[in-house]
């Protein structure tokens, strides 16, 4: 397929579209401070009990039982089929036993499907480790990109990457989707993966620069993006197929992960096609301008020196 879209000319529109998600995301995080995201028990510490009753039970019945144990402010989520996800603050083994036996005594036979507890220390560690991992991944990406590309491409690629992470985190902040430990995995994978398309396009720009025809830089970049467009879209499509299958069919546990990855992957494809290369052009123009100014300054200096020496 041969495409010939002018991606570069409308770049202001593409930037605006990105900011339309990123800025509300940032605002949502600030407004919800000190919990910018809806952190699950993996981060905050706490208990999750998932039970399925043999007979019809309502959420309010469950709440009533919990209220009797001073756990009335727990989050109770009906998961269909008389199944409930109960999230409480951190409680010890005996309290957990009390909850389960109270539910059993008052509401009937149940199947205890999941019983999780994460201590506050573990949550803190996860947060710290997650931030560490993120920082290290960033540094590695910057190093890799700097080695593989010249400075300006590297900078543009990193900006695109920041864009993808902000879009993903931003949407999770806006919709208050719960984040768990797999979210960290998703963000790291996005950092690793979304750079791919950018690299492929920059690779093509570099190749085309070597065999440059009579064309402006904007035309050359457009040509490069169009040449790699099928690949950019198709490779993301196969990943999206895999993620959609996981999200829709894979069950509760990997849903957060698949959702975060899905957003990151789509954003990654978008940023590498619509924003990374235009940003590179922007940076290139900017740095050329500075060079020219510096050069002309130097030239005038040289001239004046020459004049005085006469």
């Amino acid at each position, binding site marked *: 397929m*041969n495409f010939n879209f002018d991606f570069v000319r409308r770049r202001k529109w593409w930037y605006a579209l990105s900011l339309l998600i990123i800025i509300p995301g940032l605002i949502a995080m600030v407004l919800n401070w000190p919990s910018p995201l809806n952190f699950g028990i993996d981060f905050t510490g706490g208990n999750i009990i*998932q039970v*399925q009753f043999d007979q019809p039970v309502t959420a309010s019945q469950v709440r009533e039982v919990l209220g009797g144990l001073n756990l009335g402010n727990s989050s109770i989520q009906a998961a269909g089929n008389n199944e409930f996800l109960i999230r409480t603050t951190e409680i010890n*083994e005996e309290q957990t*036993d009390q909850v389960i036996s109270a539910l059993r005594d008052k509401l009937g036979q149940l*199947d*205890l*499907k*999941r*019983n*999780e*507890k994460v*201590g506050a*220390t*573990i949550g803190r560690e*996860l947060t710290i*480790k*997650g931030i560490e*991992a993120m920082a*290290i*991944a960033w540094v*590695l*990406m910057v190093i*890799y990109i700097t080695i*593989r590309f010249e400075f300006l491409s590297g900078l543009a690629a990193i900006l695109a990457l920041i864009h993808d992470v902000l879009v993903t985190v931003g949407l999770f902040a806006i919709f208050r989707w719960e984040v768990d*430990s*797999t979210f*960290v*995995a998703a963000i*790291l*994978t996005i*950092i*690793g*993966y979304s*750079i*791919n398309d950018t*690299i*492929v396009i920059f*690779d093509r720009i570099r190749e085309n620069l070597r065999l440059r025809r009579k064309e402006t830089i904007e035309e050359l970049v457009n040509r490069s993006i169009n*040449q*790699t467009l099928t*690949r950019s879209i*198709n*490779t993301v*499509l*196969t*990943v999206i*197929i*895999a*993620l959609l*299958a*996981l999200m*829709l*069919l*894979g*069950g509760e*546990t*990997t849903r957060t*992960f*698949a959702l975060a990855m899905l957003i990151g992957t789509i954003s990654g494809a978008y940023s590498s096609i619509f924003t990374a290369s235009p940003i590179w052009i922007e940076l290139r123009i900017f740095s050329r301008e500075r060079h020219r100014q510096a050069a002309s300054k130097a030239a005038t200096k040289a001239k004046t020196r020459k004049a005085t020496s006469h």
Partner: protein
Amino acid sequence: MAGGKGTGSFFKLAIVLVAILALGIGAFQPLLQAMKLGLDLRGGVYILLQAQSTPEHAVTGEDMTALERIMRDRVDQLGIAEPVIQREGSDRLIIQLAGVNNPEEAVKMIGKTALLEFKTSDGRVVVSGKDLKDARAVIDQQTREPEITLKFNAEGTKNFAETTQELVSSYSRGDPKRHIAIYLDNQLLTNPHVDEAIPSGEAVIRGGFASFEEAANLAALLRGGALPVPVQIIERRAVGPTLGADSLAKSKTAIIVGLVLIALFMLIFYRLPGIVANFSLIIYALIVLAVLWSLKATLTLPGIAGLLLSVGMAVDANIIIYERLKEELRNGKTLRAAVDAGFKRAFTTIFDANATTVLAALVLYFLGSGTVRGFAVTLSMGIITSMFTAITLTRFLLHLVIGVPAFQKLWLYGVKESQIPVAARGEI
């Protein structure tokens, strides 16, 4: 298929493809069956224990060794096969019990310090768990109630005899001070009255047991000994067998649907090379499973997510190559030259594109928690394997394919005759 050469290469191709299919069908199921499943897929408990230092005593390596031994003992008492017990850091212990029918029971036994103390009314410790020689649960013949009989060692027997003698002689019958309280983990179990001095070194904990099983469990704990330091469960993930089976079934569906859709996608977009890519994917999947199996890796839910995702990313290598191939064909190259150029020029791109993802996965492996580590392993392994199969197997298969005259039509590669330069038409 006019020439003998064409027929020959067709048969060669057919044999290779049939062999791959047979291998796929034959080895897939046994490999999957042999794979060890994680707790989240078959039910079980993961417990992270934190040994706690007290003002008087900081946790030492010896404490941890003793703790590990006692925990192994307790788990054995529960009759659980293949428990995983390992130290983490300087003061933590991971216990993983797969396929437990009653995870709550296991958790209850694991969390107990099992510090047994016999105390007088003024709080003096007469004997404690370390003075025990044996503890057994029995049913009392008269009351039909479960109870635990204790036997002390020599020192315990002596202390117990002395103290009971002292109580009997100092206080009159019925005096609350003539009691010896039995505490477990600082909780009062019973506070029996001392009828007479007990020189035999035997005692009974009576009453307060709901079932014989409860008494038997406590007896087992007492026999195993008290923990050298108090412990706390700081993380626990118990998955019931029904949820595990449910997750397993759901992941299977997700994997099958994902794979079929990706295969269809490749077929529709890349036609003949797409089929070749799909055959490569079979081998890819076998290699990944075989490596996982030989590493004795445990397959978890995040691990499965990593596998499926790696397939989605894996075909990327093929896509890069095939897009190049199409482009080279449109530029007027012959089929063979286009295939060679496609592979040669795509390699750096493929390497670049995957290196960053593997880097990120490595970071995740070294800094991630247990749950996401499986994901990091399967993802990075999947990506490396995919690169390998794309540049070796796909290339080999594609060379076989283009050797067959019937497969030398441009449309089979997704390129229209009108798209290539006039001079190059009709001679690919």
